[in-house]
């Protein structure tokens, strides 16, 4: 196992370089002037004669590909990601300001994915072909056919349009005043729910939660529908295995057979898929945040894309790709740790 981990770690920089290379390839599909736009924040700069040429030279935007790539990479390493037109601030700041919101959303969304997806998947397999199983299966299939944005619109429509329970946005205006302007409120983590608890402010905690529920439902939904089917099929496979029969032949009670002997084996492949799914959930963030006006990274990126703010979009892609590569590494390593057959190789 050790050699496996070492190999993965050695590959890490290779893959990261590949990722940055790919992004740069896409970036260089744009003309130098268009790419220049990502570094300038005052359009009046270009009125100065020869300003464009000098700046293009400064940022190496007309250089041959390898040089251009290396320079770009150097800038990235120094966190100089350019200027975001849509956010009217450096991309670096735009990201760091919006990151906590998205992080909070994603972290909470993991819970229903695992609970509903895996737990229901196990139940569905155990009650194979029952009414319960059929219902769950049909729900999952229909769920898999309902695109997340339509689902999200439905949620918005029902829970806000009709019922008025779950408003869009991240906080109500009165809560926003306190969190962002009051000196009594200390933002330790920038995760509003946690900060609210740390500040002992229950109303804000509840308000934040209330705004999170609908986005969480929307974001997690695609993932748990998929995870449910995988868990169910893995569990069904495992329940047919010989060692399950062995356990039963020893007189082990059914609960232990299912939840210890079978589940532990069935969940190994599921866990790795779950990890990958959660990482992919990051992609769905854009849709969810747009639908619910949730001011996170996804909202900003989608807006930036509509307005052709290349710098922001490219930076966002870079960030997410990096997170995914790291996430995959963690998933692969944990797989090696969980499965004794790999661990003790």
């Amino acid at each position, binding site marked *: 196992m050790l050699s496996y981990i070492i190999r993965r770690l050695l590959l890490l920089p290779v*893959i990261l370089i590949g*990722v940055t290379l790919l992004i740069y390839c896409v970036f260089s599909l744009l003309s130098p002037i268009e790419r220049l736009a990502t570094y300038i924040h005052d359009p009046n700069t270009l009125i100065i004669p020869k300003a464009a040429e000098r700046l293009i030279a400064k940022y190496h935007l007309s250089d041959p590909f390898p040089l251009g790539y290396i320079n770009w990479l150097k800038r990235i390493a120094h966190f100089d990601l350019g200027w975001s037109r849509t956010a009217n601030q450096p991309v670096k700041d735009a990201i760091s300001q919006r990151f906590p919101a998205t992080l909070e959303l994603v972290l909470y969304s993991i819970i229903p994915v695992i609970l509903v997806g895996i737990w229901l998947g196990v139940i569905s397999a155990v009650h194979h072909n029952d009414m319960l199983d059929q219902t769950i299966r049909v729900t999952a*299939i229909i769920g898999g056919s309902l695109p997340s944005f339509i689902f999200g619109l439905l949620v918005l*429509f029902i829970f806000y*349009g*009709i019922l008025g329970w779950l408003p869009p946005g991240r906080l109500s205006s009165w809560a926003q005043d306190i969190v962002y302007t009051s000196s009594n409120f200390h933002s330790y983590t920038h995760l509003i729910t946690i900060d609210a608890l740390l500040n002992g402010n229950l109303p804000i905690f509840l308000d934040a939660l209330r705004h999170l529920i609908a986005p969480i439902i929307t974001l997690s939904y695609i993932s748990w529908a998929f995870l449910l089917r995988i868990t169910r099929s893995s569990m069904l496979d495992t329940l047919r295995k010989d060692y399950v029969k062995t356990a039963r032949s020893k007189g082990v009670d059914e609960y232990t057979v299912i939840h210890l002997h079978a589940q532990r084996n069935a969940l190994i492949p599921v866990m790795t898929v779950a990890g990958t799914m959660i990482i992919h959930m990051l992609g769905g963030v854009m849709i969810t945040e747009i639908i619910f006006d949730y001011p996170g990274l996804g909202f900003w*990126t989608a807006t930036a894309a509509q307005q052709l703010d290349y710098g922001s979009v490219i930076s966002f892609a870079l960030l997410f790709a990096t997170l*995914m590569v790291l996430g995959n590494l963690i998933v692969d390593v944990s797989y090696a740790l969980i499965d004794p057959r790999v661990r003790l190789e």
Partner: protein
Amino acid sequence: MNRILRKLFSNATSLIGIILLIIFVTIAIFAPVIAPPLSEDYYQIPRMSWDINPQPPGSPMSGDIRDIYDYMGTEIKYDRAICGTAEGGYDIFYGLIWGTRTAFKIGIITVTVSMLIGIVIGSISAYFGKWVDEILMRITDIFLSFPFLVAAMVLTTVLGRGLDKVMIALIVFGWMGYARLIRGSILSTKEETYIMAAKALGVNDGKIILKHLLPNTIFLVMVQGSMNIGSMVITAAALSFLGVGAPVGYADWGQMVSFARNWIIGSPGHAGQYWYTVLYPGIFIVLFVLAWNLIGDTLRDILDPRLRGEL
């Protein structure tokens, strides 16, 4: 093959899927008859009015638009918005009908091309092995590091709006699954005893690949492909929804839903007033994808025991 077809037809869920699919195919084929186009660009949704607000189903074509068509000499085959209009007066019904053609175009083209790319790369990787395999697989990993939607979005932002750009984006970031699938399939089949038996009989490598390895493995990949058609359409729709896919007014279901975000809540006191802007395109998307999913689900079940025993 026949057995598979028979099983597909006998299973209730896949039968529903097949029926739905047939309906959609019919709509797509007869689109010019069902919703006669009013301009040379068939995919440009005609506008029933200049109104920003969506109009409810049954609204008639506004006078000034009718005048324009009369002036141009275009014959107006129907003049009511049967399913209502979206923001800007775009006729929803037209968009639904021609959107079916768009959906099939997107689904089939993207899957076919990405499948071909995947098969080529996967086969090369599996056949040559060693460092060719290593490099190609690392490249695949790199492409896989991008969440599909994000990657497609970046590409369409840079390339511009348009259906072809959307398809390019979907293809560029969609081939990896097939590559891995065929590589894995070839690698495991390579070790199968019947291949070794052929080798022991002196059959040369090329023949082995063509006659024995490829047929089995390609079938698997094709099944995976057909199951992916639905998700391709969804992703394309998501891109349009985010405003980076098909241009405004194009007959694409996702594009039609993108308007709906602003109108879904309706005006105060009239929640759901503009339900038709979301419901109609939404239903079409869901049913289309459901059809492919139902068929795909059954195909997967059929394949399972086959993989176990007989293949």
